[in-house]
């Protein structure tokens, strides 16, 4: 995915839209519901909400037009350019224009309005084009898309969430705190306010929260996290783990327990593991790793052990000199004992007991302190 140069995004979550005029190709009610549906797919994976207004200036003004239509980007008649839209901002920014020389249809007998509207509204929210030909934000219209089973691709979800984050844990309207379902004997209660985690890692756009023999699997395409036994996915792994981190450039998650570590790729535990953590460059005094995170931007992996941390250079495949350092030295505000850590939307989330610390690595400061299980819709 990509975002517009300068990263324009809406500075509020509750946006308005207005359908300024209607193509005669479809009944108005169909156009209204189609646009609403196109907005909903973005609403489901972000904190954004969209309200329709019928007059005045909305954040997103939707118009149908032909040829020159007042924005120096004239349409070109049937075919070729179908529509265009503008990045978030005032006035024409955020607006979406549809070429009414196209035959707009509800199916794909003509140009499918839902597909094009969903794409253009992605621009209105701040997404630029994607090189992933399966992504909605790929620039070329694909009339073969299966409308009945349409879903945003992970690339689209990653893109929009890099701008606005995931949907709120609880539904927008306040609800009574749900009683956490009594855990079966031996399984942790998801919404236990005292819940802590052994390890957390991303995995191909999802987040895995490890606790004892189990883990929660959080995908941004499903509201409810799944709950599984570790052994049901990766039988060779130990029954509980100390730390986990994904090295995206290797499409691999490394799992740590005691002085050993494993490498998993998707469902497969890689051959040649477990290996000793001392092969990574740890001194023999280190008997276990508390938490690990690999920064895809800098290609450095951070290992947290008690109140210190080491840094491993993924390019050189060696531990960096000058370590260990005190955690508080470079991660001020983070409790010196780290249970788990992962990265999302450019922030590091450090977990300590039932709390998590959102840390901005650029500003080098904690920006929020949250409950550990907030990511599990509690």
């Amino acid at each position, binding site marked *: 995915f990509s975002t*517009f140069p300068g990263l324009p995004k809406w500075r509020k979550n509750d946006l308005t839209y207005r359908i300024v005029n209607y193509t005669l190709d479809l009944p108005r009610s169909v156009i209204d519901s189609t646009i609403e549906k196109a907005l909903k797919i973005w609403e489901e994976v972000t904190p954004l909400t969209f309200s329709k207004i019928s007059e005045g200036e909305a954040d997103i003004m939707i118009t149908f037009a032909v040829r020159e239509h007042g924005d120096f980007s004239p349409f070109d008649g049937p075919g*070729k350019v*179908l529509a*265009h839209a503008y990045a978030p901002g005032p006035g024409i920014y955020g607006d979406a224009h549809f070429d009414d020389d196209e035959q707009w249809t509800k199916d794909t007998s003509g*140009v499918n309005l839902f597909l094009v509207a969903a794409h*253009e509204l992605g621009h209105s929210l701040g997404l630029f084009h994607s*090189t992933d*030909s399966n992504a909605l934000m790929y620039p070329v*219209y694909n009339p073969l898309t299966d409308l009945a089973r349409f879903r945003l691709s992970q690339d689209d979800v990653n893109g929009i969430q890099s701008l606005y984050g995931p949907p709120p844990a609880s539904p927008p309207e306040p609800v009574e705190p749900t009683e956490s379902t009594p855990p079966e004997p031996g399984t942790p209660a998801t919404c236990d306010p005292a819940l802590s985690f052994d390890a957390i890692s991303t995995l191909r756009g999802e987040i895995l929260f490890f606790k004892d023999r189990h883990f929660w699997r959080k995908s941004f395409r499903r509201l409810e996290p799944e709950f599984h036994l570790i052994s049901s996915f990766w039988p060779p792994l130990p029954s509980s783990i100390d730390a986990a981190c994904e090295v995206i450039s290797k499409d691999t998650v490394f799992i740590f327990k005691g002085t050993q570590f494993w490498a998993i790729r998707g469902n497969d535990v890689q051959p040649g593991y477990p290996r000793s953590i001392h092969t990574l460059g740890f001194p023999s005094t280190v008997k276990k790793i508390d938490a690990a995170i690999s920064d895809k931007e800098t290609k450095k992996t951070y290992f947290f052990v008690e109140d210190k941390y080491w840094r491993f250079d993924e390019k050189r495949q060696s531990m960096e000199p000058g370590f260990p350092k005190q955690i508080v030295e470079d991660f001020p505000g983070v409790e010196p004992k780290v249970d788990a850590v992962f990265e999302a939307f450019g922030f590091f989330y450090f977990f300590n007991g039932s709390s998590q610390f959102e840390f901005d690595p650029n500003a080098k400061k904690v920006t929020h302190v949250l409950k550990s299980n907030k990511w599990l819709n509690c």
Partner: protein
Amino acid sequence: YPVDRAAVDKDDSMDFVQKYLEDYYNLTKDVKQVVRRKDSSLVVKKIQEMQKFLGLEVTGKLDSNTLEVMHKPRCGVPDVGY
């Protein structure tokens, strides 16, 4: 540049290619005359950039596969630069 003339039939005038690269790949307009020269490495680079972005084989030539995708309906927002 080494244009595969056979593939560029009357509909695929160099104007169409020129406009596509200007509209979506930031080919600046002041190289208009350059496109007609056969050795414009800038235009070859732009074609390669487009082919890479669209997931096509990066040949730097206007082969039929590339031209076919270029003619498909698309969004009017550029692919690079804005």
